[in-house]
């Protein structure tokens, strides 16, 4: 079906007596389809990708999405007439076929601000990704992007620290931060775990990190981990003269447990604590409040997101999750590597980074940004690139992501043939050499491998790293790509 086949004319029944007669109407007759609607600056705007069932008119499907994510039920109810129902109805106002993808349509929907509770991601998401995603007339639906009006943005406190203040606290400027996830992720005792943390930090990393599923298992109780890790952090800080940190994962079964763990991390002098996305939006906002009250950087691992962000036809785009998390208030978020082992088309991933770091996002279709977004000076989130990356990709990473990112080389540090400190040295030297060369005006995309080779001449650990991993790439076609540009894959 082409754009001209979309029957987009206004079909709202305007006669009130007809409109509220008991029975079933089409959603587009009930007022959820308003092609003439001009979105207001204070509306929440959503772009859904919808796949209607065979024979379902795309405009009716879009109207149904608007209806089911706001006030509608399957039949006419007279009680609508007790309310100013026109303002509570979401309005689908545009439908277009997805370029090059038969059967899928983009549907734009506007929501009046009155529909949402101030400062609540849970409330916003209960409407926008609630019942509507199980609605039978749609085979599939995906929330592609969202515009949150400034009026709503200002009801959220945002990141407790933000990337600018984080740098000031850490005294680290003008280069990406370096981290590593302690490996193996499961099975180390507290004592052995702290050893890995000490070696990595003393070798030159800024951060070490608990993995998402390290909580408090039989092999390592959480208090034991925190005590050993903080000994490692402080020893490394004294050995280098730098502020160091290790993300202590406080994820637990209940809020009470998480608060207890976070309090202990604070008592031990940690600069940062960590939570997983699976704890849920409300728990994240609570931990954000706690972090703000306790001068703590809050790291978010996006564990679980792949279940609903990866497939293009159904779920929620990660750019929407990133926007919600900036509002909810985290300081770090895993946002992809483009070149590593995990899913991510380079331009699409850059789109996520821009959502985290810019004061204002312009429309940028190749990067998947469908709306302008004014962040109203809300603090910025530090994106984290983690998963199957190594020193040999340093030029690509810095070229793609710039300075405001945490680059995490877990295997690429701990798996170094000469040991963990050597792995950390290799990464830090590669990083500093690349930043220096870029600032000197070198074209690091082209000359990157040469710059690394030169640096390896004075740094044996870097040479060993390049010899071990230089050729490793994860070159698979990404599943989540822009519909508006052919995206180059990264070699």
């Amino acid at each position, binding site marked *: 079906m082409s754009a001209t086949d979309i029957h987009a004319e206004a079909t709202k029944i305007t006669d009130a007596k007809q409109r509220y007669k008991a029975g079933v109407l089409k959603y587009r007759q009930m007022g959820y389809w308003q092609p003439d609607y001009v979105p207001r600056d204070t509306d929440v705007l959503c772009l859904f990708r919808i796949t209607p069932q065979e024979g379902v008119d795309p405009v009716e499907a879009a109207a149904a999405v608007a209806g089911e994510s706001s006030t509608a039920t399957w039949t006419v109810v007279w009680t609508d007439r007790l309310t100013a129902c026109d303002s509570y109805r979401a309005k689908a106002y545009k439908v277009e076929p997805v370029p090059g993808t038969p059967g899928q349509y983009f549907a734009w929907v506007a929501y009046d601000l009155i529909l949402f509770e101030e400062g609540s991601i849970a409330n916003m998401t209960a409407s926008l990704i609630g019942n509507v995603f199980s609605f039978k007339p749609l085979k599939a639906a995906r929330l592609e992007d969202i515009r949150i009006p400034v009026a709503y943005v200002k009801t959220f406190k945002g990141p407790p620290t933000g990337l*600018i203040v984080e*740098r*000031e606290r850490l*005294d680290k*400027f*003008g*280069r990406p931060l370096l981290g590593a996830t302690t490996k193996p992720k499961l099975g180390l005792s507290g004592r052995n775990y702290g050893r890995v943390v000490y070696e990595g930090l*003393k*070798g*030159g990393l800024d951060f070490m990190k608990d993995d998402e599923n390290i909580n408090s298992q039989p092999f390592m109780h959480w208090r034991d981990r925190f*005590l050993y890790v*903080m*000994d490692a952090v*402080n*020893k490394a*800080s*004294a*050995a*280098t*003269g*730098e*502020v160091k940190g290790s993300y202590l994962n406080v994820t637990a079964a209940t809020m009470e447990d998480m608060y207890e763990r976070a309090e202990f991390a604070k*008592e*031990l*002098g940690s600069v940062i604590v960590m939570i997983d996305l699976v704890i849920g939006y409300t728990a994240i906002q609570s931990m954000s409040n706690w972090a703000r009250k306790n001068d703590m950087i809050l790291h978010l691992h996006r564990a679980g997101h792949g279940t609903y962000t990866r497939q293009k036809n159904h779920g929620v785009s990660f750019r929407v999750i990133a926007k919600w998390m900036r509002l909810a208030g985290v300081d770090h978020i895993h946002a992809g590597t483009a070149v590593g082992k995990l899913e991510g088309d380079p331009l699409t991933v850059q789109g996520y980074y821009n959502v985290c770091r810019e*004061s204002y996002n312009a429309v940028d279709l190749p990067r998947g940004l469908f709306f302008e977004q004014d962040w109203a*000076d809300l603090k*910025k989130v530090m994106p984290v690139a983690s998963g199957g990356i190594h020193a040999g990709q340093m030029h690509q990473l810095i070229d793609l992501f710039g300075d405001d990112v945490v680059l995490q080389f877990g295997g690429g540090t701990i798996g170094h043939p000469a040991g963990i*400190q*050597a792995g*950390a*040295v290799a990464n*830090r*030297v590669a990083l*500093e*050499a690349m*930043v*220096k060369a870029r*600032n*000197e*005006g070198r074209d690091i995309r082209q000359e990157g491998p040469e710059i690394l080779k030169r*640096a390896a001449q*004075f*740094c044996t*650990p870097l040479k060993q790293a390049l010899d071990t991993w230089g050729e490793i790439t994860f070159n698979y076609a990404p599943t989540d790509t822009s519909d508006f540009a052919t995206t180059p894959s990264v070699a």
Partner: protein
Amino acid sequence: MITNPTGRITQGQFSFLPDLTDDEITAQIEYGLRKGYAWSVEYTDDPHPRNTYWDMFGMPMFDLRDAAGVMQELRECRKTFPGHYIRMVAFDSARGIESITMSFIVNRPPSEPGFGLERQEAAGRTIRYTVKSYATDRPENERYR
């Protein structure tokens, strides 16, 4: 003697690389000037990781857009404090940043004794840590002789 792999304090952008030559420092200053940053020169003989306020060698050079002029300030500072840590600091006053955007060490004392870690045993297995410089027991300006 510091035992980390570099044998020295690793603060700043380039501590893991061989010391930058004056030409290389100039190139970094020029990069910052192209970005619209203001440079300043700071020095200290107390490089504790949490010592935020190194002393300013003059004001930040907001109106100096010439790398040679900035280098002249650095030379003056080196002449006055040859045995101190000196760092170049770039500041970006753009809305939403309003912070330091570059920082790297360009002068160090002849030997760097580094820091010790003091442990005070507290309740349970908790330990209170203090990072303490081996040099700061002596008065200012007498620390790295």
